């Protein structure tokens, strides 16, 4: 049995990746924030990354 293709309204929108591989949608999302909100988003990422590192110890990269 052949699975029918999803209808058009279930297809995800094509990603907006430019010729350099940059996701333009991510940039537009960042531009919606204030400069301080942009920095806080990075803080959240760094904090989460550090937490994961602490949970996993300083293991060598394989």
């Amino acid at each position, binding site marked *: 049995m052949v699975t029918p293709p999803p209808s058009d309204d279930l297809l995800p929108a094509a990603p907006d990746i430019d010729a350099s591989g940059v996701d333009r949608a991510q940039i537009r999302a*960042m531009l919606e924030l*204030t*400069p301080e909100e*942009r920095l806080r988003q*990075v803080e959240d990422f760094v904090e989460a990354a*550090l937490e994961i590192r602490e949970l996993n110890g300083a293991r060598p990269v394989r």
Partner: protein
Amino acid sequence: MARARFAEILRLLAAGDVEFVVVGMAAGILHGAPVTTVDVDVVHCRSPENVARLLRVLAELDAVYRHDPRRLRPDESHLVGPGHQLLTTTLGDLDCLGTIDQDRGYEHLLGLSVEMKLAGGLTVRVLSLPALIEAKTRSGRPKDLAALPVLRATLEETKQRP
């Protein structure tokens, strides 16, 4: 490494009347580039008065050289020069740079910077996105060149906004 509170570092510097320009990837992030960083880079004015103000804030942040096991603290002799002081603080890593990009100091970069508001009515000067792109292009270092596609795309998107 301390928990990163980059916005708070900038707020303390601004509240302490320190003259500085945010450069590096933190500048790119402030302009909207979807990138990350683990430190804040600033180029500070190296006048004795400003270095004194900077030292007061660095003391408040308990800043020490992050690669020195003696927990050496920066002093005036370090900060009046053109070198790079790589510090760690209670709010995250902070690099205080005397000059960047072929010996360009605060006075030069000020004219290439834009003002950005922080919460609470404070403002900071941030290297403009075109100037950041030019500096990273001139540097030619692989890590700087790698950031260029995202920074250039961010500049294009910024120009297209109403």
